[in-house]
């Protein structure tokens, strides 16, 4: 296909026009990332007076540390749970809203609200509801004979952050699912209905496969969200505790670097995280764009 091409004689102009974007990328992304890589090979006192180049010591220590491996495990558990929980709930809600004809705008609007709430505020809300001494939820649960105390019990704490983080993400997933559902051609489901397929059969054999691009996209986005955007929620609800039960990787970077002032280890951890993001992004570009098409 021959497209119409405009020739710019000026060789410099394109670069000049690109400069602002390149500058922003360099200053805010490339340069800090390079700094992190550099720091990850160094041992330094907090004030930066004495810097020793120590090759891979930060990394080798990291992977021999029980606390770091624990954090990797917790992150996996957390990310998978949040992704599954928030995606399945939002799919359920989206399908339900899609069936409601008259008030679906209203439901859509209401369901999108949580997305507008800042992560820290979400954290505070859930912290408040589940606070072992003043919260309403532990009070009700005590009536049912459940002793909720996420201050001490690591499982309770993990459940709490999973619930809080999933709740926040449901709106986002919901919007995409609703949009995805609306693009499923009515004619296909109608044809299936005429052939005698019930609602469940229609959903699993027609709608769900046709939703797969949306689902796959959301899968990647949700894993990313759970791993990197939940910092505020963790900080406000459990601060990584008790006994590191909810200390996910991104929180550990902060805790070790900003609270513990161990810059070398923190930098090494952030480089590891950077590699994970790069991997996830690569997966997304490779597969979302190509394979999952119908």
């Amino acid at each position, binding site marked *: 296909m021959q497209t119409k091409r405009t020739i710019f004689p000026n060789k410099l102009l394109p670069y000049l026009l690109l400069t602002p974007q390149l500058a922003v990328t360099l*200053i*805010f992304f490339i340069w*800090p990332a390079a*700094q992190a890589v550099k720091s990850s090979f160094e*041992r*330094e*006192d*907090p*004030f*930066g*007076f*004495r810097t*020793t180049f120590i090759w891979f010591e930060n990394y080798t220590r990291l992977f021999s540390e029980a606390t770091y491996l624990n954090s990797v495990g917790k992150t996996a558990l957390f990310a998978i749970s949040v992704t599954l929980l928030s995606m399945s709930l939002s799919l359920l809600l989206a399908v339900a809203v899609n069936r409601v004809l008259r008030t679906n705008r209203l439901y859509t609007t209401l369901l999108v609200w949580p997305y507008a709430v800042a992560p820290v505020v979400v954290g505070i809300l859930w912290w408040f509801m589940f*606070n*072992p*001494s*003043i919260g309403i939820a532990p009070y009700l649960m005590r009536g049912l004979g459940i002793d909720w105390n996420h*201050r*001490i*019990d*690591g499982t309770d704490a993990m459940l709490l952050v999973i619930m809080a983080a999933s709740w926040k993400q449901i709106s986002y997933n919901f919007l995409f699912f609703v949009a995805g559902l609306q693009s499923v051609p009515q004619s296909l489901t109608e044809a299936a209905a005429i052939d005698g397929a019930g609602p469940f059969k229609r959903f699993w054999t027609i709608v769900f496969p046709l939703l797969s691009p949306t689902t796959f996209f959301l899968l990647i986005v949700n894993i990313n969200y759970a791993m990197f955007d939940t910092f505020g929620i963790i900080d406000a609800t459990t*601060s990584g*505790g*008790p*006994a*590191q039960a909810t200390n996910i990787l991104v929180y550990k970077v902060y*805790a*070790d670097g*900003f*609270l*513990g*002032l*161990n810059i070398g280890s923190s930098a090494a951890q952030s480089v590891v995280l950077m590699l994970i993001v790069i991997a996830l992004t690569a997966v997304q570009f490779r597969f979302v764009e190509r394979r999952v098409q119908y």
Partner: protein
Amino acid sequence: MNIFGCIGSYGCYDLGEIRDGEVPANKGVSMFKKALCLSAGLAVIMAATPALAQTEISWWHAMDAELGKKLEEIANGFNESQSEFKVVPTYKGSYPETLTAAIAAFRANEQPAIVQVFEVGTGTMMAAKGAVKPVYQLMEENGEPWDPSGFLAPVTGYYSDTDGNILSMPFNSSTPIMYYNKDVFEKAGLDPETPPKTWAELEEMSRKIMESGAAPCGFTTGWVSWVQLENLSAIHDQPYGTLENGFGGLGTEFVFNGDVQTKHWENLKKWADEGLFEYGGPVGGADAPPKFYSGECAIYMNSSASRAGVINNAKDFEVGFAPLPYYDDVTTDPKNSIIGGATLWVLNGKDPEVYKGVAQFFTYLSSPEVQAGWHQFTGYLPVTNAAYELGQEQGYYEENPGSDVAIKQITRGTPTANSKGVRFGNLTQVRTVIDEEFEALLAGNKTAKEALDAAVERGNQILRDFEAANS
């Protein structure tokens, strides 16, 4: 991060520096960033009043709410007392946040003249010799009166280097005490004027309180690491670390897994299981105060500086104040408790003119009137003997019973090597480790001995890291 550090702090360029056209020495910061900061800083300064004769002294602090207002009052008091200098206090968040902000600012040559650092950061600051201007030196250079013996002995001890020089200006020092609910005591059939002296009494009274239904919980505590380990060790004259609890050098190792500490943690676990003790959360223990304010827990151990908050919040019951309990089978002569709170550190890299102002401000700050006012308002200790005496002359302690519990507790007896305080690098991290191990104990994953052994082992690793990074 660095960019934000820079932009966030551009307003704190001292006018003096800019006026002299002096750019702070390059510490390996990229020229680009410096230019960015400088231009941002200049833009702000040019937009402000062009001709300011006063030298500004930036002061970063971590005092919020009522304490923050009182602190600003002090700064205003100084600003009105003379016209040459202007102290500009800036609230930078919690203690760890303030310390981190100051360190980041220092690395970018944007540091404030004065920064408030909590006692946990003392080891870190002392090791950073190039970053700090010792206060004794500052006062000497600027011809301000300086008498270390005027400060309370435990304060001097905690903040002096090995040669006995005070490195940072004592400002808000506290020590943990015990608060108790007199109404609940009465309801449980206990004498509200006789608080528990020993842990055995505390256990017995807590049980009585619970069994009588006067309150659902006996006691809670803020700052487990500080109150139930550091202070516990000091009061019972038990070592916390080798080399005089870290005062003797960076090669120190933790030894807080001794018999007394283990027994105490065993007890806390036992009492937690019985419901006599409720855990208030890690670090400062954010859940502890509401448990006490709401009448859920009858006894509450926390900093003496919680006094203002306790009095404000304990609206429907009467509060009693008492020293921390001790084990009478370990000692019959409990030692002094140790310091918490913060001091003011002066950072390097400023104009001589600025330091002159800082020195004058410190003289103002340690005057008996200012110190006594701060102490009486907040519940922090009067850091100078003169401020304490002034309070006595004013009759403050008689009018406010219990307000001298903290100072009496911290000055009782002669401090030993074990009760002088603790000094370790990276202590913030160690305290986190202690909280985590305490939580593992409460969750039943570890015994007291296992938890403390693990805390010592992990803590020692952190100390070795600090030693490696600072030598």
